[in-house]
């Protein structure tokens, strides 16, 4: 009986895995595209839609597009005018930063990548050392390089900073500032001290209840009103401070999720060993909680990176602002599609890379458990 079943199963399996690759492809197609009447209909529908949309899109973006040349007159084809993007590339990446000092920005970018790679690599020895490096030495070096004014470097005012570089600077400062603040707020929200708990909760709920744009506007319009006369803070710094305070509330909720995932026994055991509350949190609870929270934190980072585009509305000059600026140039009117498609593409590449890393991290975490 059992032999017969095994034999049957064997023939069945042989049927599903035919030898030739061609037959395998046919089998895959049959199962995944034409499994049922509805399935076949859907396949035909999707293919028809693709046939409708893709050819004009490819014609516009690739086959009939122009990339060469330096002026508008070079764009003679019916398709996209990528010349516009190519000519304005420095503006999109560096904003109005002095061209002779582009190397300073490039150097900061190289340093950032050099610090980030060891931090992001799993199983890196002394990973925490790299994290500390990324959060202390790198910002100091980057500030010196970008601002200048010492060591013979020319001073470059923040009003000249712009383009994609500004998005990265704002995002980096926001993450570096909001994560520690968020951790404190998350601990505060779980605290047994009623005032601390209420204050943390009020802070988190307030920021999460209002649009980011109001917070940025407060930084731009209201903050000067609250400062003593004569004291003024750079517009960019104010915007970054607002983003830090705002995103700290979101970070706090993500970290709180991580804290809830740590077993109570851990904290109790550490207390029994006589550790002080701060030591329990810092050496026992947080390392485990942050590990769980990493995918959520990366999601928040992706969100806040996308949100850096909002600084254009308060008059800062990030990638989106640079694109809008370039579109207003009388010599290059009418290339809105190209401009925004380019901005979207750049953001897509950055965000997709980050979310893909987050997902792989999540998979690794769930496998470890």
């Amino acid at each position, binding site marked *: 009986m059992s032999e017969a079943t095994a034999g049957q199963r064997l023939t069945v399996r042989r049927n599903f895995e035919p030898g030739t690759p061609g037959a395998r492809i046919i089998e895959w197609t049959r199962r995944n*595209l034409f499994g*049922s009447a509805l399935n076949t209909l859907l*396949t035909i529908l999707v293919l028809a839609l693709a046939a409708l949309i893709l050819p004009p899109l490819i014609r516009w973006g690739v086959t009939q597009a122009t990339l060469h040349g330096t002026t508008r007159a070079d764009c003679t084809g019916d398709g996209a005018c990528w010349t516009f993007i190519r000519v304005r590339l420095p503006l999109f990446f560096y904003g109005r930063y002095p061209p002779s000092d582009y190397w300073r920005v490039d150097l900061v970018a190289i340093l950032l990548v050099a610090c980030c790679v060891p931090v992001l690599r799993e199983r890196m020895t002394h990973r925490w050392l790299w994290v500390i490096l990324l959060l202390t030495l790198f910002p100091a070096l980057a500030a010196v390089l970008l601002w200048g004014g010492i060591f013979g470097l020319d001073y470059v005012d923040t009003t000249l900073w712009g383009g994609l570089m500004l998005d990265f600077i704002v995002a980096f400062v926001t993450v570096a500032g909001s994560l520690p603040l968020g951790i404190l707020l998350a601990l505060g929200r779980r605290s047994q001290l009623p005032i601390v708990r209420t204050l943390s909760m009020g802070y988190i709920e307030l920021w999460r209840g*209002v*649009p980011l744009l109001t917070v940025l506007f407060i930084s731009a319009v209201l903050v000067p*009103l609250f400062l003593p006369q004569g004291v003024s803070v750079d517009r960019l710094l104010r915007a970054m401070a607002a983003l830090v305070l705002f995103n700290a509330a979101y970070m706090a909720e993500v970290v709180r999720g991580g804290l809830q995932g740590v077993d109570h026994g851990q904290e109790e055991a550490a207390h029994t060993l006589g550790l002080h509350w701060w030591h329990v949190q810092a050496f026992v609870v947080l390392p485990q909680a942050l590990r769980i929270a990493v995918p959520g934190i990366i999601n928040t980072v992706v969100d806040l990176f996308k949100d850096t585009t909002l600084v254009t509305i308060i008059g800062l000059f990030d990638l989106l602002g640079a694109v809008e600026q370039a579109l207003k140039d009388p010599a290059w009117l009418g290339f809105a599609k190209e401009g925004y498609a380019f901005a979207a593409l750049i953001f897509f590449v950055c965000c997709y890379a980050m979310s893909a890393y987050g997902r792989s991290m999540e998979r690794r975490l769930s496998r470890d458990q």
Partner: protein
Amino acid sequence: MIRRPSPRSRAAQWLLLAAGVAVAWYLGSQAAVNIGRRHATFGFGFLADSTNFDIPFRLIPWEVGDTYGRALLVCVLNTLLVSALSIVAATLLGLMVGIMRLSANWLVRNVALGFIELVRNTPQLVQIIFWYVAVLQTLPGPRQSIPLPAGSLLNVRGLYLPSLEPGAAATTLWPIAGILLIATPFVWRLTWRGLPLGSRALLLALLAIVLYVIGIDHIDYPQLRGFNIAGGIQVIPELIALWAGLSIYASAFIAEIVRAAILSVHKGQREAALSLGLRPRQVLSKVVLPQALRVMIPPLTSQYLNIIKSSSLGAAVAYPELFQIFAGTVLQQTAREIETMFLLMAIFLSINLATSALMNWYNRRIALVGR
């Protein structure tokens, strides 16, 4: 539970509170000094002053010269309109894409995945501006309007829909239809001789529609007259762009929520339902979706709140909502930074709190029905 906080830390928290109060007091006094230097006072009296700007899109009558208070009402309604439209569209689109993501068809599954990745990984602001500048503003002018089904027209000035003009009978019939429509969900839950009325309540909704149709005098189709379109209802391109941007962006997140919720329903539930002889459609509608809905509501709520908050991005395309008018025009004309910002934050907070209270109530209700 674990260990009581020590008296020292109990005392320290008062220090924290004192520090907070001190900072707030210091900032407040600085603001008072700065406002005093401009010979202005803090207060909301300006809401009764008359305005000198126009609001190009409104749901209630508005004229230049009406008060700032009325402008506030007009803008709140505009914000609520675009938020409500976006919530409905995002939910439907998200539900569709989320189910597509689970399709047995490889093509459908991956088209949905591509859509989600593309939308989720580009900034919302770029999307809204793209729809506005790169799509809607490149449409032809009124003379070359694109005809759409049911007599609608689309051109660079927006979407023109035919309007249903009320006749004389509408003044009595339409309110009755409205009341019937509101009553439908309540009648749904009533019982008649021990049996729940259920879907028979839909007869009321049908009656409401019939009354509404009887009330219509004629349909006003938009038509080209001179250089512009006359008749019908004009939906301005700013609203369409913001609506598209908000709902498409949120739909990608909702799709993932829907997918996760459906996957969270245990396999055994589906198998048990199938073995009881339910048809696949019944399995989905009677077993899987009701359970998935319960998982879905809390993350869905936070997406709805995101939509409401993001409606402030209307400022980028000049859709006359709360943020665009009050943080823009009103703030510049009255120079009342603190008051306008306070109003904005308070209104957004209250809309959000009301929405989340509503969703929590709904969440509790469906949780109870199931048990």
